[in-house]
């Protein structure tokens, strides 16, 4: 006979009426236990003691030390390409300096020529050539305000060698 309407209590009672007596499988139990006890888990006793930690800690420190040395070595090592770049840069600097000096010299020479030209354009100027201190020179005598200034240029007229006022 069945109940059409049931209460929550009926349901809970139903659970209580289930046979709670344990089923047993002694053979399976023993076999499984033996299988588990013979497993690798029980083969070696892994006791972690302080010496293990010391070993691991030592290894870690040593590895860090080696890695630091490698890092420092590679960070200070100048690669061939970098050496070439440095050399090129120095070469360029030297070339640049040489060019600058030449430029300055030419400028100076131009200034001397300009100075000669300026002198010779003035009035009361007398130009002559003579031997002065065993070399051929161009002498420019300029008379201004009753003072005579004598300029000695090299024969190319681009270098002022000496000047005097009389």
């Amino acid at each position: 006979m069945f109940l059409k309407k049931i209460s929550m209590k009926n349901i809970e009672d139903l659970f209580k009426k289930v046979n709670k007596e344990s089923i047993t499988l002694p053979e399976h139990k023993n076999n499984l236990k033996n299988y588990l006890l013979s497993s690798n888990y029980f083969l070696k006793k892994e006791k972690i003691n302080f010496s293990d930690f010391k070993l691991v800690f030592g290894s870690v420190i040593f590895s860090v030390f080696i890695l630091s040395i490698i890092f420092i070595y590679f960070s200070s090592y100048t690669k061939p390409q970098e050496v070439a770049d440095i050399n090129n840069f120095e070469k360029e600097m030297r070339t640049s300096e040489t060019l600058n000096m030449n430029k300055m010299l030419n400028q100076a020479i131009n200034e001397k020529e300009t100075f000669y030209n300026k002198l010779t354009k003035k009035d009361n100027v007398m130009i002559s050539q003579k031997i002065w201190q065993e070399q051929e020179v161009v002498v420019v005598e300029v008379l201004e305000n009753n003072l005579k200034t004598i300029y000695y240029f090299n024969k190319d007229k681009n270098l002022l060698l000496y000047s005097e006022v009389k």
Partner: protein
Amino acid sequence: MGIKELVEKSKNKDKEAFSQLFDFYYDKILNYVFRRTLNIDYAKDITSNTFLKVLKHLNDFKWKTGDNSFNAWIYKIATNEINQYFRKQNKYKLIVDEEKFKELGDYGEAVKEIENRLENDEYLLVLNKGIKQLKPIYQDILHLRYFEELSYNEISKVLSKNETTVRVYSKRALEKLKLILEKDALVFKEN
């Protein structure tokens, strides 16, 4: 020796302690699994796999939630195995190696006796038929609460749910079970 001590000694590879721990839990787990599956062969396999996993992960176990942590932990493993079995059904396999699996042997008489007892346990059959129509989480809760008699606190740890949620789910599960049993007229009237 208490469970806590047995567990700690087992963690330190103490065979005797593990043997006692196994004896204490074997019947509980086997019966829990059997009441869920009603299949003695699968109950053996699931119980075996549960204990293999217990041993495999024993060192990872921690007493996070008090002294009943281990009880909840072992039921959690068993429940996971049962749910795997329900998902995979015929594809569910033992994880022992084949040679030793043979050693686990057959025991015809014991199995026959259990099967006979099951056939005569109408209440279990009626309840199981109804429970199997519920959501898996409701099935877990009803079995753990009413057959295994775990506290709501322990069930919450087994299922990784809040205790209040477990209480609510338990009530809903009973209500749904009641409707199923009424619908199918599966409840016997007391004589």
